């Protein structure tokens, strides 16, 4: 009982329960995608306009930059949790992600404008 009244135990329990919740929610999403209860079709295809249904390079680039960043960042956090502040995301990664996302948005806007003109 006395141990439970220590703030450090409370903090650790809170963090662990938060981690479990995030992991369980992620698991629910992954299961939903694999069981096809969550719609995942057409993620990399152009929607609308004259290229409707065609593979979209802009979407592919945005997805690759997102997943590449996750794959490179997450192992570092797991391995060096004490140096989290030092694991600051480099400008190169920020530019890569911002650039690919901008390209994706620009291509989406072009499709919409093309449809309306």
């Amino acid at each position, binding site marked *: 009982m006395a141990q*439970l*009244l*220590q*703030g450090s135990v*409370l*903090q*650790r*329990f*809170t*963090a*662990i*329960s*938060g*981690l479990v*919740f*995030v*992991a*369980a929610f992620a698991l*629910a*999403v992954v299961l*939903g*995608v694999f069981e096809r*209860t*969550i*719609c*995942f*079709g*057409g*993620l*990399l*295809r152009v*929607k*609308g306009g004259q290229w409707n249904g065609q593979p979209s390079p802009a*979407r592919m680039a*945005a*997805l690759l930059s*997102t*997943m590449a960043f*996750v794959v490179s*960042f*997450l192992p570092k*956090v*797991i391995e060096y*949790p*004490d140096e*989290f*502040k030092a*694991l*600051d*995301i480099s*400008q190169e*990664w*920020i530019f890569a*992600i911002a650039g690919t*996302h901008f390209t*994706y*948005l620009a291509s*989406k806007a072009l499709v*919409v404008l093309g*449809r309306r003109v």
Partner: protein
Amino acid sequence: MSPLATVIGWSLVIIVDLLALAVLAQIFLGKIDLSLLLSEPGGGASLSRFQLLVFTFLVGFSLFWVTIYGNRLPEIPNGMLSLLGISASTYAVSKGIQMTAGDGKAVIALDRTQGLLTAGQAITLTAAVNSTSQVLWSYTPPVGSLSFSGNQATYTAPNPVAAPTTVTVTASIQGTGDSASAAIQLS
């Protein structure tokens, strides 16, 4: 940390954890529907939603993980804030583009989707439409009365209510298949 603060902290954590547990249970039991979590309005998966979800998981997992090891809330790196900003902005701009496009469809929504009435009571519903098309009102089963003018309709329950029932009031846009409904329970 004082004992009182720790007790309050435990109470809050237990409440939040129970809420989280309830949400998870509902998700795994299929009562919270995640089928459209990644979908765009026009169909198909949305890349902006997907990347926002992935970055949210990444940041959430990282912060909790670091907190467990450091036993304190970590200082959030500026790069991570930039990353979340880019991610959320992409989603917001993407939604803006979709709203601008409107996908060529008229969209209708009601200001309330349910109500509870007793005998003789009335409820007013307002339809929001993104076009100048005429709104058509209907209700089923034919119990009570419905008066309407433009985007507003007033449903009045019968007096007396013969039996508890649910009346569905529907607003639809003329010439399109789009509609919105409100379930009015009579008791």
